[in-house]
């Protein structure tokens, strides 16, 4: 009885699913969904190889310093870096004095209280502070950016599919909208105040091209600051802000893996040793036992199996 009830329930679910299936197929063929410009013109990120990739990957500190320079001279005008602290810059190879100077010279100051009057005030940043955001709040940020909110960049390479490759591709992906696209999708013209970029999910991005000319920043280490190079460097820097512990994680992981591999091999031999006698006992009384083999042969003979 139970099985009939359950069978009935199963049949009902299956029937409704098949009705859904056929009804959807009907709609699909009678009224096929219109293709979107984004389905056809969106591009997957170009691969960006970083020094921190792979099992032995370590950050290229020179590149991170260059990327930090691009962030502080260009990106930080609109984008915050709220989760990172100045003291974290030690990971880029800066020493204590340099970090102190970077913090106190930072263009926005930290909100504080006037110690005499208790009124709102600002003070210079300290190494223990997080990077002060460029805008005091979301409303101010939107007001300055055509109502678009520039996202915080600390975790951006983890918060977007494609990570650093996506950041690099987006920064170098601005171009004029292809004529072919407009021919196919006349309604898809990029609206005013937006910018065409095939790496962005819906193709039209509020952020104007931030890296426009070669030499926009001047690198101290002599690297040529082409747009492509600046995009690579800042993407590498943002990979670091999202995962400052990457080197420790990789090093730790290698040791753990080596330790577990050795443990595994040794305990496998221990297992073999412990089971050695148990397996022999089985062999004596198991299928290779002459009595069992005779039985097996008789069974095979009866079933007409040879060999």
């Amino acid at each position: 009885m139970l099985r009939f009830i359950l069978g009935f329930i199963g049949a009902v679910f299956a029937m409704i699913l098949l009705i859904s299936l056929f009804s959807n197929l009907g709609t699909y063929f009678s009224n096929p969904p219109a293709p979107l410009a984004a389905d056809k013109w969106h591009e997957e990120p170009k691969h960006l190889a970083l020094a921190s990739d792979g099992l032995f990957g370590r950050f290229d500190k020179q590149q991170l310093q260059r990327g930090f320079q691009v962030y502080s001279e260009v990106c930080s005008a609109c984008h915050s870096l709220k989760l990172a602290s100045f003291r974290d810059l030690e990971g880029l190879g800066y020493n204590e004095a340099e970090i102190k100077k970077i913090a106190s010279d930072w263009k926005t100051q930290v909100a504080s209280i006037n110690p005499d009057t208790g009124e709102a005030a600002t003070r210079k940043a300290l190494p223990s502070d997080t990077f002060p955001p460029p805008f005091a709040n979301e409303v101010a940020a939107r007001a300055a950016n055509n109502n678009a909110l520039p996202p915080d960049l600390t975790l951006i390479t983890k918060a977007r599919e494609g990570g650093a490759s996506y950041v690099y591709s987006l920064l170098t992906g601005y171009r004029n909208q292809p004529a072919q696209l407009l021919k196919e999708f006349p309604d898809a013209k990029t609206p005013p105040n937006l910018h065409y970029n095939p790496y962005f999910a819906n193709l039209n991005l509020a952020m104007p091209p931030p890296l426009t000319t070669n030499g926009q920043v001047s690198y101290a280490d002599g690297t040529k600051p082409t747009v492509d190079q600046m995009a690579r460097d800042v993407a590498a820097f943002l990979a670091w802000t999202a995962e400052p512990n990457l080197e420790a994680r990789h090093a730790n992981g290698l040791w753990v893996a080596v330790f577990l591999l050795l443990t595994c091999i040794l305990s496998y031999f221990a297992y073999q040793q412990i089971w050695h006698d148990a397996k022999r006992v089985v062999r004596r009384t198991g299928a290779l036992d002459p009595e069992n083999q005779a039985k097996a042969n008789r069974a095979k003979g009866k079933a007409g199996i040879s060999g």
Partner: protein
Amino acid sequence: MSFSWAKAYEPKHPAMRWIDERLPLPRVVYGAIGGGYPVPRNLNYWWNFGVLAGLFLTIQIVTGIVLAMHYIPSTDGAFNSVNQLIMRDVNAGWFLRYAHMNGASFFFLVTYIHIFRGLYYGSYKAPRELVWMLGLVIYLLMMATGFMGYVLPWGQMSYWGAQVITGFFSAFPLVGEPIRIWLLGGYAPDQAALTRFYSLHYLLPFVIAAVVILHIWALHIPGSGNPTGVDVKDEKDTLPFHPFYTAKDGWFAGAVLLFYAVVTSFAPNYLGHADNYIPANPLATPAHIVPEWYFWPFYAILRSFTVDFILPAKLWGVLAMFFSILLLFFLPWIDKSPVRSGSYRPVFKRFFWLLVVDVIVLGYIGGAPINATRVAIGQFASAYYFLHFLVILPLVSAFETPLPLPNSITESVLHGEVAEAAPAGQTRPRRGSVATAE
């Protein structure tokens, strides 16, 4: 323990004797996971995954308790306490957090293998029905715990996942919406929801641990099953759990931990979703809301109901999704075949592998963005899921002719497949449909 040859505990050290006489805990442990538990000697590696599930439960509890020391359960502070405090400032916080995140995935992975092991080898059949049902209770508790844990970082997927999953209840007419509001403590996920999810996320693992004890207790009454599905007959068929299976579980646990360490160290976010690194924003719905990978097959079933047929599509989806798990409780009575092991059931075996493929397809569909083709595949695969358990399985168990079973476990251990068929009456009583070697 039910086997007469199970060794009794003999304290070797006077201190252990002293304890054992006053509180026989050493005796209980020895009988449960020591030399006092006889286990069939022919277990294959699919039998290792129960112990592994216990291992990952332990890892989750240990890493989770330490994480709870640093986590701040507030809508303002949760995201930063995870992504700033724990990931950057707490010593080895990044390690704890990634170990916990991936530990959840590995806990589900080994549990799924454990469940499918049970499905293939008929582990749900008499006399182990309660073992199976307690296992399903553990699984349901794991799902609740996993879901609530995913909400805690208060990222975009946390928030919208909580919104969607509590939204299931609003599909039910009349009582649904009040239940949803009661569960969330508000009209949408907010501080009240986050705090209670945190509280329950801390509580439920200990409930799981308690049900695990019942699961093992119920298992130890009949003893472990084995790949032939034939009952243990005498001492020759078994080996003491310690040292034989502790050694086998031990080295294999090392191998799985190695895999876990490699994923945790080198691809810690591979199994997660990028959107959960964006702070929760009730005003911006993500383009594709998806749960964690271990819920994808059920999510695919939910999304497959697209037509209002008598009841609204959403209610059908929710009912079907709940029932897709509940039906597993009836499995011991759905599959009436007296043969436990799928190895001796040629027709069942084929359908079993079809089910495995079906669930993997459902998983893919549940995780991928919707389009017309994927919806159609998901509907077909969902229909097959229900037909498999509720229609095909009872029919197969009624009409299938199983292969001859070996006389005993010992005989099957080497070349069991050529062993002579058991004459009727010598093995467990079965229905007449069982064939002999002719």
